[in-house]
């Protein structure tokens, strides 16, 4: 490879990493937290303690929805499992601020008000790809960021001259060289994960980013395109005549027979209460890599099976597996933690990359580097702080407060914004230290605050085998220790001058 070529690609690497780097950090970190979406939701609803079998929970949810939201165009339910007690319900509601509701229903009573009002882990999940922006702009921005990250990863591989020779190399205390080593090690060791999660992230938004294949074959006839892409889904217009929904229990039992070993996962009911209602029951996502692999559809009023479909077409199945790999809903415990750790590594790769960009310009002046150096602190420390604020608000806002769930989200954005403003006002070296010290304290104190507020704490959790609470608290302590270590090191004068070997391409 010619040196000029490498330098050009290094330019591509830093451009693609920098343009949306701060946003990418937030996307990656919220996605990493979303690995534990179920557990976060459970932690944020400490009032729900009684479990029910998934079939009974779905029946309870359908009963409650039938009484309170019979006019919705559809109910989309996710059954509880060994990771979460509540049934998640999404349905359209003109009275809701966004036009739809996304709520958790108690598995026993089917009611949404057993627990405090919160979005739980669903907030972080939605933020990960919608960025709290109106549809579809958040998704467009997220997929653009993902594409830039894919370009950054590919160009990063190309410019890494000694990708195998330096694979285990980390040299501390050498200024920019150490940052480059850290960036490389974090990026290379989990490279298969980084490539997978980035590419499959684009796949989850495929129809949005790449609608041209569909346009080529179907023109504007999206209905046919959708029907051919998902032949398992039966769709029909509402008849306009009311008809009661048949009991859902026997339908769940019939679906389970089709699934064999598999469990019931998602249940959607289109036009409930109408003569043309359709109940679609999908296999649990934890039973195979592929997302939405198998469904059974029923005629709502009679409970008769309309269609059983398991995806077998190679290309569509590949796409479903890629989708499932991104969602990680299949992942058993160990894999879930591996997703989490690799996600953290990716976030750290982005953070070290952003820092490297500044470190490569020690003499740079002007507005760009000035803002970038401060945005680094604001983004890297601010986003975890925002997540912690979300958790704190969950424990501290009064249970009966009106607009409580929105209040938690406001706390998240206020703290994120405040962290960025704080970073703008301080010298970066000091800001790193102070922000991470605050983060460490906040993370370490949260288990205590949570114990005082709920009476469920680490000690009783370990004694009682309450692994959700014990795991949550231990993770917070681990995070506090990490933040404290960063605070202690950040801003420390790096030893020695930067060695200029000119052997390795440096993002320029």
């Amino acid at each position, binding site marked *: 490879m010619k040196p000029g070529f490498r330098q050009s690609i290094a330019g591509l690497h830093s451009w693609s990493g920098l343009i949306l780097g701060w946003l990418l950090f937030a996307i990656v970190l919220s996605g990493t937290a979303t690995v534990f979406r179920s557990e976060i939701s459970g932690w944020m609803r400490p009032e729900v303690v009684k479990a029910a079998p998934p079939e009974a929970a779905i029946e309870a949810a359908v009963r409650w929805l039938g009484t309170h939201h019979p006019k919705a165009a559809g109910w989309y339910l996710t059954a509880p499992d060994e990771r979460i007690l509540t049934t998640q319900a999404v349905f359209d509601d003109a009275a809701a601020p966004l036009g739809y509701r996304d709520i958790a229903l108690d598995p026993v009573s089917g009611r949404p008000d057993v627990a405090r009002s919160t979005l739980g882990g669903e907030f972080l999940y939605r933020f990960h790809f919608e960025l709290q922006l109106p549809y579809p702009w958040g998704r467009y921005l997220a997929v653009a960021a993902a594409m830039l990250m894919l370009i950054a990863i590919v160009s990063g591989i190309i410019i890494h001259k000694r990708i195998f*020779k330096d*694979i*285990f*190399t*980390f040299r*501390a205390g050498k200024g920019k060289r150490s940052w480059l080593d850290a960036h490389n*090690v974090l990026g290379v*060791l*989990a490279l*298969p*994960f980084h490539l997978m999660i980035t590419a499959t992230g684009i796949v989850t938004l495929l129809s949005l980013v790449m609608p041209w294949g569909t346009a080529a074959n179907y023109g504007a006839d999206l209905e046919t395109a959708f029907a051919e892409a998902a032949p398992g889904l039966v769709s029909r217009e509402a008849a306009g005549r009311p008809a009661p929904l048949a009991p859902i229990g026997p339908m769940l039992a019939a679906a389970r027979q089709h699934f064999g070993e598999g469990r019931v996962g998602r249940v959607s009911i289109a036009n409930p209460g109408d003569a043309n209602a359709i109940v679609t029951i999908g296999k649990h996502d934890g039973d*195979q*890599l592929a997302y939405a692999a198998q469904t059974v559809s029923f005629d709502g009023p009679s409970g008769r099976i309309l269609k059983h479909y398991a995806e077998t077409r190679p290309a569509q199945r590949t796409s479903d597996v890629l989708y499932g*790999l991104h969602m990680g809903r*299949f*992942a*058993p415990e*160990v*894999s879930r933690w*591996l*997703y989490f*750790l*690799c996600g953290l*590594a990716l976030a750290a790769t982005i953070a070290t990359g952003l820092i490297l960009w500044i470190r490569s310009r020690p003499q740079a002046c002007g507005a760009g580097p000035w803002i970038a150096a401060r945005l680094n602190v604001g983004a890297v420390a601010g986003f975890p702080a925002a997540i912690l604020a979300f958790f704190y608000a969950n424990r501290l806002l009064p249970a009966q407060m009106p607009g409580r769930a929105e209040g938690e989200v406001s706390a998240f954005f206020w703290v994120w914004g405040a962290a960025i403003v704080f970073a703008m006002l301080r010298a970066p070296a000091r800001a790193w230290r102070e922000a991470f010290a605050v983060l460490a304290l906040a993370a370490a104190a949260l288990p205590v605050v949570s114990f005082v507020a709920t009476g469920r704490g680490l000690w009783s959790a370990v004694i009682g085998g309450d692994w959700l609470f014990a795991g949550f608290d231990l993770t917070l302590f681990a995070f506090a220790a990490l933040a404290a270590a960063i605070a202690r090191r950040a801003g420390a004068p790096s030893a020695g001058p930067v060695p200029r070997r000119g052997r390795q391409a440096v993002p320029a």
Partner: protein
Amino acid sequence: MSAALVLPLAFGGLSLLSLSMQRHARDAGITADPHWPRRLGWGGVLLSLAVAVAAPNWRFALVEWTGLMAVAAALVVLTLYGRPRALPKLAAGGGLLAAAAALLHLIG
């Protein structure tokens, strides 16, 4: 459950691969002929893969193995950074035990 076996095997294998590189061998205080660590190292990595995909659901296991390799490699880097001289012993001890257990596991 195979993670408890795959991780030490992968760690042992990757440690040996790192020790087959001159820079890391020097840091660890050994001057071995690089051929054997390299071959044994690849052997350990391949054995960890074999143990992983021998699980009932090899698709899930393959994803898990990829993640465990990243963790094992990170542990090697951390050991080389903090306690480089302990690496040969850790690699030999952990790797041998895991290899013996793995062979029993695969046969059994």
